[in-house]
């Protein structure tokens, strides 16, 4: 019989086995973030041309490992923890098949370690994308495959838990919006992992000599159904976490369940098409295919993100106005808890994801504009805005929430936690903006030496490009510092944070359940539907969240202007067709 404990601070119910699995997955994620962060420093300090720290072979090795650890291992471990939280904890249900969940976790660990070992051995510096026919060691691919299978098991445990919760009637009505968003992430993850299997398994067979040829273009097209879609899991997951955070911090309710869920549905239908963004200047792919896919079928997935961009802060604004912060357009925002890293982390992630990550992503995913951006350092700048700030900072903010609730520890060095989102978001924003600039000047991504030392022919980038790479480097170092602050707080909290009742010792912080006496509930009471509101109107003219509407219009103006600038820039280059 499953046993639950209730968190006295938050009121969340934790199933014993789900709780342990959330802890180990979150901790494993943080360990891979640590590795990725250390490696990031090597990348930044090499691309900063005046420092140029690492030799070429080590640079490419470090860059390969940085990409995989940050973009795959860190986020997916953390997302598995989120899936278990959104199903078992939010629905007050026991977790389905905990034995399978542990097996999945073990596979993910084995796979992640195996892949890192392959890169560390030095014969697999093929970048995260591992484009054929450049070949890595067989255990490079095998590690990724095992990791993917483990993650897939996690997805099915999540789905199984939804079924159990429904059968056991642990909740009334429909699943909460946050769980709905997590389900979106799960569905996208299954698609992603299937694509990964379709291409990585033959590639593994090719690396051991069983298959003699893999078409390089086919690899790119299918690989990106893994590579880009895995980032769409992040989008669905972090948007869900945004809804969770505004619910917990502000008692916010979605402005409209229908609109928010419809936006998630659009993600399921159309977000996958984004893998085309990487194929826009490739041979052998038709123009029609490129236009339809790169636009996610007429930008319906972008529409979904623009909807969340209104409804997430809008829901927060409505809740804040309900508490009396009604002065002017922005009192609700000014009076937000800026000193709480859960809020500041969430809000910076939202703004930077939308204003920088979203806009640059759509612009460079425009078929023709991609000609002036493809494979320049503009591309990593874009996805650091989406993943390194949007997703990672959201997960950091969520961690500050989970440390007391899930790990039963008080935050260690709370003043460091308080500053962390500012340092991380500030540093990363500097890095991102300047790398976007350098990319516009033609600086390549994945390139060891912008001086082209040893080349038979010479080329010099303008001095501005060097300046931008240097300032970007300073921003990146600040970002790494922000990442280190996060890890100091989390690791410190698990080791030295003040124990909360029911209390957790050292091992209980990692994966072992709390003392048996804490689990004194067989089955929590059925989760009730949210209380109905008496219809009240805040704001004016039927606009409940006028401040958010102004912010959304500001986003649109930036979007339109920046989009136009890029077409203008494109029109200035050599005519081609």
């Amino acid at each position, binding site marked *: 019989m499953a046993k639950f404990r209730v968190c006295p601070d938050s009121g969340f119910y934790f199933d014993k086995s789900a709780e342990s699995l959330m802890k180990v997955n979150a901790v494993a994620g943080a360990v891979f973030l640590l590795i990725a962060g250390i490696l990031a420093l090597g990348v930044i300090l090499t691309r900063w041309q005046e420092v140029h720290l690492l030799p070429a072979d080590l640079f490419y090795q470090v860059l390969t490992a940085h990409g995989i650890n940050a973009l795959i291992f860190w986020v997916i471990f953390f997302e598995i923890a989120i899936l278990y939280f959104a199903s078992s904890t939010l629905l007050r249900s026991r977790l389905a098949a905990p034995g399978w969940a542990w097996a999945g976790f073990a596979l993910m660990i084995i796979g992640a370690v195996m892949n890192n070992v392959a890169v560390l051995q030095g014969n697999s510096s093929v970048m995260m994308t591992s484009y054929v026919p450049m070949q890595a060691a067989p255990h490079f691919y095998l590690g990724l495959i095992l990791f993917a299978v483990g993650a897939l098991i996690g997805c099915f445990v999540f789905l199984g838990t939804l079924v159990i919760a429904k059968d056991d009637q642990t909740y009334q009505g429909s699943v909460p919006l946050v769980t709905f968003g997590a389900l979106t992430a799960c569905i996208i993850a299954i698609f992603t992992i299937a694509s990964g299997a379709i291409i990585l398994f033959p590639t593994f067979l090719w690396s051991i000599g069983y298959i003699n040829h893999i078409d390089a273009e086919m690899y790119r097209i299918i690989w990106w159904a893994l590579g880009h879609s895995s980032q769409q899991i992040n989008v669905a997951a972090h948007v869900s976490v945004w809804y969770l955070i505004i619910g917990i911090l502000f008692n916010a309710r979605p402005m409209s369940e229908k609109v928010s869920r419809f936006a998630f549905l659009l993600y399921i239908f159309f977000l996958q098409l984004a893998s085309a963004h990487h194929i826009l200047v490739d041979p052998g792919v038709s123009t029609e295919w490129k236009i339809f896919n790169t636009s996610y079928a007429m930008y319906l997935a972008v529409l979904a993100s623009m909807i969340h961009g209104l409804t997430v802060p809008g829901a927060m604004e409505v809740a804040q106005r309900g508490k009396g912060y009604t002065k002017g357009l922005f009192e609700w925002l000014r009076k937000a808890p800026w000193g709480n890293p859960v809020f500041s982390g969430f809000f910076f992630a939202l703004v930077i994801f939308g204003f920088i990550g979203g806009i640059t992503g759509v612009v460079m995913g425009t078929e023709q504009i991609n000609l002036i951006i493809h494979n320049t350092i503009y591309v990593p700048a874009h996805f650091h805005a989406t993943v390194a700030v949007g997703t990672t900072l959201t997960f950091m903010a969520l961690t500050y929430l989970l440390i007391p609730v899930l790990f039963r520890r008080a935050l260690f060095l709370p003043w460091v936690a308080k500053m962390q989102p500012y340092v991380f978001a500030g540093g990363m924003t500097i890095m991102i903006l300047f790398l976007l600039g350098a990319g516009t000047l033609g600086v390549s991504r*994945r390139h060891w030496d912008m001086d082209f030392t040893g080349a*038979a022919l010479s080329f010099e980038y303008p001095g501005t490009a060097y300046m931008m790479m240097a300032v970007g480097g300073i921003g990146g170092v600040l970002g790494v510092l922000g990442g280190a602050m996060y890890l100091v707080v989390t690791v410190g909290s698990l080791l030295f944070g003040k124990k909360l009742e029911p209390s957790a010792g050292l091992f209980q912080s990692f994966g072992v359940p709390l003392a048996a006496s804490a689990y004194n509930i067989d089955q929590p009471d059925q989760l009730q539907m*949210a209380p109905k509101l008496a219809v009240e109107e805040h704001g004016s003219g039927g606009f409940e969240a006028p401040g958010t509407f102004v912010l959304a219009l500001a986003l649109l103006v930036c979007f339109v202007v920046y989009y136009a600038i890029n077409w203008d820039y494109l029109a200035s280059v050599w005519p081609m067709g």
Partner: protein
Amino acid sequence: MSSFLPPADRIWWKVPVGRQEIVWISIALVWCLIMFFMMPYWHVYGKQNLSSEAYQTNAEKFGASVETFVEKYQTRIDEQSGIPVVTPPAGSDIYMLGRLWQWYPILELEKDKTYRLHLGSMDWNHGFSLQPVNINLQVVPGYEMVIKITPDQAGEYTVVCNEFCGIGHHTMVGKIYVKEN
């Protein structure tokens, strides 16, 4: 708090949507459609588009076409690099291949003339990154891509490789010269 609780209304999909969301969704949808139609529009009225002309090939076949092209139109050898400089007639088919770690040959073109540029790779993926114009194309082994280009300014242009291709990636630099006619 209902973001993580079941919706307050059992039949939540029948709750009317507020005016603010409807206005915003309408504006956003219009913008999305404008962005969508901008791409086909540019194919008709814009000057910078990527053709989808491409052929499957292999290293021997493509290498042979490039050699024939070089033998036919070579005018000199670049002293610095030892790479042949080729001056093809205006408006002709021109070739450039990427291999570890070289762009071959060096092209000498005339301003405002249109050429059919055939691009291919002899080994791994390469990235054709024309600087300082900043035109970037993916060069994939097994495929021959044909793009019509019209250099509209005279000068010396550099082809940088911007797809990672191993340890000598950063030494992979080629040239295109554009002369006034």
